[in-house]
């Protein structure tokens, strides 16, 4: 049986109640957002449920939205059910002051480096990660470069106008 987005929504609502998730669909891909405390429970359910079987972690990354107070950082999981060939995107938000999210390394060995990368660039602490340290940047770095407060251009330059590049 091919999995449909409607069925996944229904299954998740049965398990976690009506209000836990917000659902959205973009370009055919189902996106669900859950509270961050629930991320492992949801991932576990998606992994273990006999119908859902989302057992392949395609991608894990972070996004920074400085204007969303209280949920500035997002962790984005792309999951794939290889048998029914169905993909979903799962997101949790966390505040930038206490950026703590449970690790998915227990479920997916592949999450290890992906989480280290996300920590490296966004400073998201993955609670329970076996070896959470920087991976691509130097160990001595004391900031998280993909956060939006670090603009790419050299800030001492005055000959360039940010407006010209699409972002003020």
């Amino acid at each position, binding site marked *: 049986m091919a999995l449909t987005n409607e069925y996944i929504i229904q299954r998740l609502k049965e398990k976690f109640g009506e209000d836990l998730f917000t659902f959205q669909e*973009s*370009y055919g*891909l189902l*996106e669900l957002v859950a509270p961050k405390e629930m991320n492992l429970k949801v991932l576990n359910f998606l992994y273990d449920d006999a119908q859902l079987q989302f*057992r*392949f*972690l*395609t*991608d894990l*990354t972070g*996004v*920074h939205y400085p204007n969303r107070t209280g949920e500035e950082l997002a962790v*984005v999981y*792309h999951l794939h059910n*290889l048998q029914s*060939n169905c*993909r979903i*995107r799962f997101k949790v938000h966390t505040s930038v002051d206490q950026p703590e999210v449970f690790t998915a390394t227990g479920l*997916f*060995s*592949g999450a*290890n*480096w*992906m989480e280290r*990368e996300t920590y490296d*660039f966004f400073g998201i602490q993955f609670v329970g990660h076996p070896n959470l340290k920087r*991976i*691509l*940047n*130097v160990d001595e770095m004391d900031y998280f*470069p*993909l956060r939006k407060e*670090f603009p*790419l*251009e050299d800030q001492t330059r005055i000959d360039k106008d940010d407006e*010209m*590049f*699409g*972002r003020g």
Partner: protein
Amino acid sequence: MTEQHIKLPAGSIEKTTTTLNLGPTHPATHGVMQNILELDGERIVSADQTIGYIHRAFEKIAERRPLAQITTLTDRLNYCSSPLNNMGWHMTCEKLLGVQTPKRVDYLRVIVMELARIADHLICNSIMGVDAGAYTGFLYVMQFRELIYEIYEEICGARLTTNMGRIGGFERDFSPLAFEKLEKFLAEYPKALKEFEDMFQRNRIFMDRTMGVGGISAERALNYGFTGPNLRAAGVDYDVRVQNPYSSYQDFDFTIPVGTTGDCYDRWLVREQEMWQSLSIIRQAYQKVQSFKGAEASVYHADTPAYYLPAKEDVYTKMEALIYHFKIIMGETEIPAGEVYHSIEAGNGELGFYLISDGGRAPYRLHFRRPCFIYYQAYEELIKGSMLSDAIMTMSSLNLIAGEMDA
């Protein structure tokens, strides 16, 4: 002499294992990466990988660039098959912008992508030969990679970092010479590939060096997020071209070669078979390209004036074309807001682009799913308990490209 001149770290005299730094610039790593190996004699007890030596912050740079200028960044991911990355990126943009590409563009792209796949697998398999002590095969097939590069050159003017194609299609139509070169390649390469295959496939030394080395079970490979030839060698027939066809791959007839044990030898065989499949796909695509008649036979891009550069003569004579030209060159086109994930089957596996746009002129966030980065973390598990020479073999059979790993 009582004074001690050499200060050793505590415990280093009693220690029975040897620490060996393999890399960052070891000739056998074929890229800048470091492995700190703990050796018991010649057996590997543990390995600690350090990566990031050529990290260039592409994801950060992309947040300040218009879509068309990000193509040059994708060139530098897996630089053994740049056109694949280029096409993947264009398709991601097209998905976000809702651009429909004409069939002829799809087929031309398939030709280029499969050529790039052959170039990529060719390097990997012949380098495996080099690491096993057979240099001749490598030098021999390099001539044929040269033929592929000449085709690239004819299409886009560049050879390695190609920046090929545009959003919506190609910058220009393939010249007759490009097709001539393609025909030459299609005529000459199969014979060489067969010879290359004969040299290795049943070669006792090569088999002894690779069989049962660096194996992984299908279950572990999936858990680690393996994709591409490395996953297929473990026996899982996951191929993005088949599962989520893009660029009209559903029009082609090909099989997915799979292995059983997931060891170096299987990985080599899978790549070898994929090259034959790629050749067959190129032939089919070339046939389809030739079958277009009339006006269709010269279509090489979609009609997307806001993202596709107008012809130069129009820029000088038409106001509208001048405006589009200016907006595209200066990167002043607003990208529609949205979130899109698109993936293609690149040389090493599923290359994904996760693009978030907030309606600005550059992506709000762009993340590359780099297959190399994801499967290299399994390296310790693959080599633990094996000999040092097997570790080298395993590394080259994974086809690690530092550019893709570090992004």
